[in-house]
């Protein structure tokens, strides 16, 4: 088996972990231990092997272990296909995060070329109910897994938009300046839209005829305005919206406002009207579909981080989830307070017990 996996993870002064080392193989990793032990912190460390602020969207200064505040480091050995990579990421006290890939300093976005990481955390339980921002972020994470260049395009769009927003706030009236920025926004924005649309199509296709215990989610993208899409239409819409945006002091239309709509297909119910457990099942379904689509695209599954995934699932659904993860061959990092939650996984998984002692987390292999 040559699936994508983290084979070694070492943490130094990261959150509650003073020093921790984990060796792992391809099997799913079940992490158990009491509340506050440091389980989610482990998953967060793995999430930082991908571009961005990780699964808690934390700043570099939140990640450093207190009270020492010495700076933090994550070392990871990653195997992707036949290649192995060494990733080091961390920050000195008071500085922003840096990344080294195989000994060379690289930008965070370069990590997207090496490994795909997808996650579900309890904070996403309300994803379908709360604002569009969370759904957009979920969609962009999925998109990044298919199109590594997505982060770059999104950053370019965002930078040009922030420039334009400043012009709007300062009530600048230089039409050429707006046009120059709107051109950059339209170019990058059209790429962002196309990447997302391809992702939604891939997720839909991967749910069709899939052997899964989880419900199909029918997805659609909602662009603002009159469904403005493509570079030319965006550029026109930005220019046409200047007066309105000037009044608002910010850009009101564009891919930064896109929303993702989901319907529980079998029932025809909007995701936001589904039960708590059904909403969670839809998210799991999408993560699994994402993994299947990536296997079809790259030949290997992504790394999955499933924080307290067992919480809203009954025993049968839990067993079905473990079966599907094992069938995918994905290295899934899962947490739960009790070892029993992973009973159905049996020896198809590897186990870590996390406890808290003397103000620091302790991680040990367990059976």
């Amino acid at each position: 088996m040559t699936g994508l996996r983290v084979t070694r993870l070492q943490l130094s002064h990261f959150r509650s972990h003073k020093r921790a080392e984990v060796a792992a193989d391809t099997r799913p990793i079940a992490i158990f231990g009491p509340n506050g032990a440091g389980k989610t912190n482990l998953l967060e460390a793995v999430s930082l092997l991908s571009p961005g602020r990780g699964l808690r969207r934390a700043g570099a200064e939140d990640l450093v272990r207190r009270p020492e505040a010495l700076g933090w480091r994550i070392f990871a050995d990653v195997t992707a296909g036949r290649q192995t990579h060494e990733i080091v990421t961390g920050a000195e006290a008071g500085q922003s995060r840096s990344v080294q890939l195989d000994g060379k300093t690289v930008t965070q976005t370069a990590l997207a070329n090496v490994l795909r990481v997808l996650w579900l955390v309890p904070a996403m339980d309300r994803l379908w109910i709360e604002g569009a921002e969370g759904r957009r972020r979920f969609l962009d994470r999925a998109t990044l897994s298919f199109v590594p260049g997505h982060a770059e395009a999104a950053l370019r769009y965002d930078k040009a938009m922030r420039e334009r927003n400043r012009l709007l706030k300062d009530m600048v009236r230089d039409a050429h300046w707006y046009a120059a920025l709107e051109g950059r926004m339209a170019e990058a924005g059209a790429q962002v839209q196309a990447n997302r649309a391809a992702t939604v199509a891939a997720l839909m296709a991967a749910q069709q005829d899939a052997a899964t215990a989880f419900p199909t989610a029918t997805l659609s993208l909602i662009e603002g305005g009159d469904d403005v899409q493509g570079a030319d239409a965006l550029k026109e819409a930005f220019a046409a919206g200047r007066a309105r945006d000037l009044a608002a002091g910010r850009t009101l239309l564009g891919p930064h406002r896109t929303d993702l709509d989901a319907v529980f297909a079998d029932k025809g119910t909007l995701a936001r009207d589904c039960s708590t457990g059904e909403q969670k099942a839809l998210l799991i379904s999408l993560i699994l579909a994402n993994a299947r689509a990536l296997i079809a695209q790259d030949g290997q599954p992504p790394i999955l981080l499933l924080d307290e995934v067992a919480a809203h699932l009954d025993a049968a659904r839990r067993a079905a989830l473990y079966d599907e993860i094992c069938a995918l061959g994905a290295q899934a990092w899962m947490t739960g307070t009790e070892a029993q939650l992973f009973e159905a996984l049996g020896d198809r998984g590897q186990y870590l017990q996390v406890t808290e002692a003397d103000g620091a987390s302790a991680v040990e292999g367990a059976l």
Partner: protein
Amino acid sequence: MVDGTDDLTDLIALMAKLPGLGPRSARRAVLHLIKKRGQLLVPLADAMQRVGANVRECLNCGNIAAGDICNICNDDRRANGEICVVEDVADLWAMERSQQFKGRYHVLGGTLSALDAVGPEDLRIPRLLDRVTSENVTEVILALGATIDGHTTAHYIADQLTGVTVTSLAQGVPVGGELDYLDDGTITAALRARRAL
């Protein structure tokens, strides 16, 4: 306090503001200067005095000049009709090192950035537009960085130039570069700018 100590502290503090120097390396540099009083310290002070008195920005193009107008603007062997627009003097020097460009320059002194409060007037853009008419310019080459701000500035300028050819430098594989080491953006740009052999 020992005589001259305050002056030394001031000098070290100033040196530490130079690019590439910090307080530690500034102290070392100052001690070295004092040790080499005749060979370094006095000649350096003289040179700085002269540069401080004479060198300023060329009124025409923004290059560094030893008077009102720089050598490049004054050189009548250089072709009128082509202006190469660069961000700063370091970029102008880089272009000159290649000895390929025989036209004139225009140094913006930065790129447009609303967030950093840099606007068109801060960048000699009105002056550039004047020059294009008064110097009978036929081609403007935009040699700006491949950043969002660089692109925005290039489009801002191009938007306002009519009746002249506007070009920009090609982006892509560096000479002697290996594809394996290039990022996706560079490869995409290089592919877009491909040409027939």
